[in-house]
C-alpha cells in the first residue's frame, strides 16, 4: 500500500436529500420515498466510503427547505422535509469504518452544551470520525419555530443594517463554536482514573469549568461527556464573503468556498489567510475546500443533456452558489487539479442527483484521480483528523 502522495487532494461529498438539483428526486435512481429511512442514508454513506472519500457532510435545517433565501416557498414539486443530520450521521456510524461523518448543525437556535456532547458522542460512536458543519440562519420563520428571539428581517442585502444583523449572527456562531470547543477540552484525556485505593472514579482536577461568557449566552461546564477520541472533532463552515471568511479563519478546521475559476480561488484563499493572520491563527492548519455542484457522465454530451432535462423538469435553470460542472470524470479531474494549484486543499462535491452522481464520483472520478497519483488508494488513517493530515490537538486546559 503506497502512502498518499503529498500532492493528494481531499475529497468530500455533500449529501442533501435526493441530490442538489431540485428536480433530482424525479430521476429513476432517486428513491424519493426512501428519504426518511435509515437504509437510504446507509447506502449513500457506504457508497462514499467505497470511494475512499475523506468525509460526507449531511445538510440540515430548522425549517422546511425553500427555493427562497429567507422565506418558505410553499412549493409542492420539490423534496421537503428532512431528518436531524446528527442522528442520521450517528445511525450510519456503526455501519462504516473509515469515512468521516460531518452533520450540519444550526448554531442560531441550538444550545452549545447539547451540540458539544452530541458531536463528542458521534466521535465516540464512530471512534474518531466526527465533525460538524456549522451554519447559521437568518430566516424569520425558523426563529418563529423557537419563539425565544426575533431576528431582524433582512430587507436589502447591501444595507448597513443587514451588515449588522449578519455580522452579529456570525459573531454568535463563532461564540457557539468556541463554547463547543472548550467543552470538548473540559475533560483532560486521562481524567478517568478509577483509583480503587481512594475510591475516586475521576481526578476532578482534570475536569474544567469553561466559564464561557458571550453576548448571547454563557456556559459554565464542564461537559457531561468525556473528551472525544479526536480531542477536537473537525469544525467546518461554508463561506461566501468577508464576514463568513472571518468565521472560517477564527473558528474552523475546514472552510468550504465557492470560486468559479482558479483566479477567484487564489483570491479567496488569500483573503482567508489574511483573516487567519488577523485572528492570530496563522500557524494552525486550515483546509480550504472548493464546493462544486457536479453532473458526471462518461460522455460530456450526456452530462449536459441531463442537466437540461433536469432544468426542464424543474421549470427553470438551476443556479447554485457554487460552480456547476457538467462533464466527464476526466474533465472534472482536470478542473480539480487546476483549482488545487490555486491553493485549495480539497473539494466538497455536491452531487446533482445523489443516486447517479455519487457513484459517478466514487467509480469514475476517484479511479481517474488515482491513476494520476492524486488520490489515496486505501484509507491511511483511522480518524478523520488523520485522513485530513491534522494532528490531535493538545488540551488547552492541561497544565504545562
Amino acid at each position, binding site marked *: 500500500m503506497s502512502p498518499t502522495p503529498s500532492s493528494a487532494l481531499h475529497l468530500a461529498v455533500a449529501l442533501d436529500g435526493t441530490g442538489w438539483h431540485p428536480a433530482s428526486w424525479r430521476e429513476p435512481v432517486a428513491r424519493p420515498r426512501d428519504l426518511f429511512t435509515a437504509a437510504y442514508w446507509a447506502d449513500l454513506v457506504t457508497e462514499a466510503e467505497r470511494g475512499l472519500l475523506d468525509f460526507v457532510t449531511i445538510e440540515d435545517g430548522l425549517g422546511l427547505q425553500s427555493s427562497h433565501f429567507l422565506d418558505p416557498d410553499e412549493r409542492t414539486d420539490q423534496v421537503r*422535509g428532512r431528518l436531524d443530520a446528527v442522528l442520521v450521521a450517528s445511525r450510519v456510524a456503526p455501519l462504516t469504518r473509515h469515512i468521516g461523518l460531518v452533520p450540519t448543525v444550526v448554531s442560531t437556535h441550538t444550545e452549545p452544551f447539547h451540540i458539544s456532547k452530541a458531536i463528542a458522542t458521534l466521535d465516540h460512536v464512530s471512534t474518531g470520525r466526527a465533525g460538524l458543519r456549522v451554519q447559521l440562519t437568518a430566516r424569520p420563520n425558523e426563529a418563529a419555530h423557537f419563539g425565544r428571539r426575533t431576528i431582524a428581517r433582512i430587507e436589502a442585502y447591501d444595507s448597513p443594517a443587514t451588515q449588522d444583523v449578519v455580522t452579529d449572527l456570525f459573531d454568535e456562531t463563532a461564540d457557539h463554536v468556541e463554547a463547543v470547543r472548550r467543552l470538548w477540552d473540559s475533560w483532560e484525556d486521562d481524567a478517568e482514573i478509577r483509583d480503587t485505593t481512594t475510591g475516586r472514579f475521576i481526578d476532578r482536577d482534570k475536569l474544567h469549568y469553561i466559564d464561557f461568557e458571550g453576548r448571547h449566552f454563557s456556559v459554565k461546564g464542564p461537559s457531561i461527556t468525556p473528551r472525544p477520541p479526536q480531542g477536537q472533532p473537525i469544525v467546518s463552515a461554508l463561506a461566501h464573503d468577508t464576514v463568513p471568511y472571518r468565521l472560517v479563519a477564527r473558528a474552523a478546521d475546514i472552510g468550504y468556498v465557492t470560486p468559479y475559476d482558479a483566479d477567484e480561488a487564489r483570491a479567496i484563499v488569500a483573503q482567508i489567510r489574511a483573516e487567519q493572520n488577523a485572528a492570530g491563527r496563522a500557524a494552525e492548519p486550515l483546509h480550504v475546500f472548493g464546493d462544486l455542484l457536479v453532473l458526471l457522465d462518461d460522455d460530456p454530451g450526456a452530462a449536459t443533456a441531463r442537466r437540461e432535462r433536469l432544468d426542464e423538469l424543474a421549470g427553470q435553470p438551476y443556479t447554485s452558489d457554487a460552480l456547476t460542472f457538467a462533464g466527464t470524470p476526466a474533465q472534472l479531474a482536470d478542473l480539480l487539479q487546476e483549482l488545487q494549484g490555486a491553493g485549495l486543499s480539497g473539494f466538497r462535491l455536491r452531487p446533482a442527483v445523489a443516486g447517479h452522481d455519487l457513484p459517478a464520483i466514487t467509480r469514475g472520478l476517484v479511479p481517474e484521480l488515482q491513476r494520476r497519483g492524486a488520490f489515496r488508494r486505501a484509507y491511511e488513517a483511522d480518524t478523520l483528523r488523520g485522513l485530513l493530515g491534522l494532528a490531535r490537538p493538545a488540551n488547552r486546559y492541561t497544565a504545562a
Partner: protein
Amino acid sequence: MTKPLKQIHLAAHFPGVNNTTVWSDPRAGSHIEFSSFAHFARTAERAKFDFLFLAEGLRLREQGGHIYDLDVVGRPDTFTVLAALAAVTEHLGLTGTINSTFNEPYEVARQFASLDHLSGGRSAWNVVTSWDAFTGENFRRGGFLPQDERYSRAKEFLATAGELFDSWHGDEIIADQETGTFLRDAKAGAFVHTGQHFDIHGQFNVPRSPQGRPVVFQAGDSEEGREFAAAEADAIFSRHGTLEAGRAFYTDVKSRMAKYGRRPDQLLILPAATFALADTDAEAEELAREVRRQQVSGATALKHLEFVWNRDLSAYDPEGPLPDIDPDVGDDHISQGRAQVRMYRDPVATAREWRELAAANKWSIRDLVINTGNRQNFVGSPATLATTIDDFVQADASDGFILVPHITPTGLDEFADKVVPLLQERGVFRTEYEGTTLRDHLGLAHPDETPAGRIAS
C-alpha cells in the same frame, strides 16, 4: 375460570452515573465507548426485552463545591447514542430521558421523530423536568423555574411536541415522479401554538414517523407527577421496591386515569429494579452483601451522610460512630445536581433516627449506610428471581421492571441467559418479538387508533 397470566414487560437501564454501578469491579468496562452500549443493547435484544433506557444529567454533580468523584462520572449524548444503537439492533425500543426545562419543543420533536424514522418505530421519551439554576448555568435559558411551573412547562412542552408530531398526518408525501408532485399539501407540518411557556408557529419539517409519536414515559412520584402520568403518559418509570408499596402506587395511579378518559391498560407501571443473581439463594445473598460493600466505600458513606447533615463531614471516620451534631437546615445544600438531596424531607428527624439505629446495632457510619440505603430489589437463584418477578407482576404491583445491573456492560448477561428462559417457561414472557415497534412490544395502540389530541388536549 382462572385469570389469564399477565405478560411481563422487561427493560434494561444502562448502568451509569449512579451509586448502583460498581466501577471498581475488574469486569467493569467503559461507560462511554460505543462497544459497551452495543453489548448491552444486543444482550437486551437477545433476551427479547421491550427497550433500553438511558437516564440523563445535564451538569456534573457537585458536593461541597467540588465535582463529585466517587461514582461513575460522564455519559454520552442520549439521542446520538440511541441513533447509533438503532443500527446494531432490530427490535429493541430506545428510550431516552430528555429534559423539558433546557430544551425547545421544535428541536426535541424533530430529534424524536428522526429517531423514530431511523429506528423503524422504536423511540420513547422519558420526560423529566429540572428545578435548579445550577443546571441552568449550562444553557441559554439560564435560571430555572419555580417548583410550581416545572410541571406546567413540562405539560405544555409535551402538548406542543404532540402538536408538532400530529402536524403531519402520514399521507402528505406522494413523491410521484411522473407528475412531479412531491407533497400533497404545501401546508404539511403547519402548526400554531400559543401558551404560557411557548408561543411558536410555522411548519414542522419531519414527516410523520412510524409510531406517529414516541412512546411517552414519566418519572417522578409527587402528587403532580402522578396526575401528569395518569393524564399523559404511556408508561411510568417509578421506584417502588416492595410489593406493598408497589401495589399501593399501582392502584393509586391507575385509579386516576378514568377522569382523563383512559383505561388502566393504557399506562404501564415499570419500576426500576436492581438484582443480585447467583446459582443458589445463599450465594446470591453473599453476592448482594459483597456488592453493597463495593457500592458503599467509607468515602461514599460519608458523602451519603452529608446529604442529610448538609455539612462537611470529611473529618469523621467512616468506621466510627455517627456525628452527634445536628444537620444544617439552611437553604443552601451541600450537594448539587442529584435528586437524592430531596429524599430526606426532615433531616433532623432522620439524623436522630439514624443515630439511634446505629447505637442499637453498634453500626459504624459505613455500616449504617450499607444497611439503610438502597438494596438489591431481587436477590436469589434464577428460579427465585423468576418467581419473585412473576409474583410482583401477577399481584399488580407493577407491569414489569426496568432492570438496573451493577456491572457495565455485562451485568445483564446472566439474567438474559438464566432468568429469562424460566419466565418464558412460565408463559409470562415472550419468546419472540411479535411486532416491530416499541408500541407493539408494550401493547400500546398506535396514536392514530386512539382518540385524537390526547396529548394535545
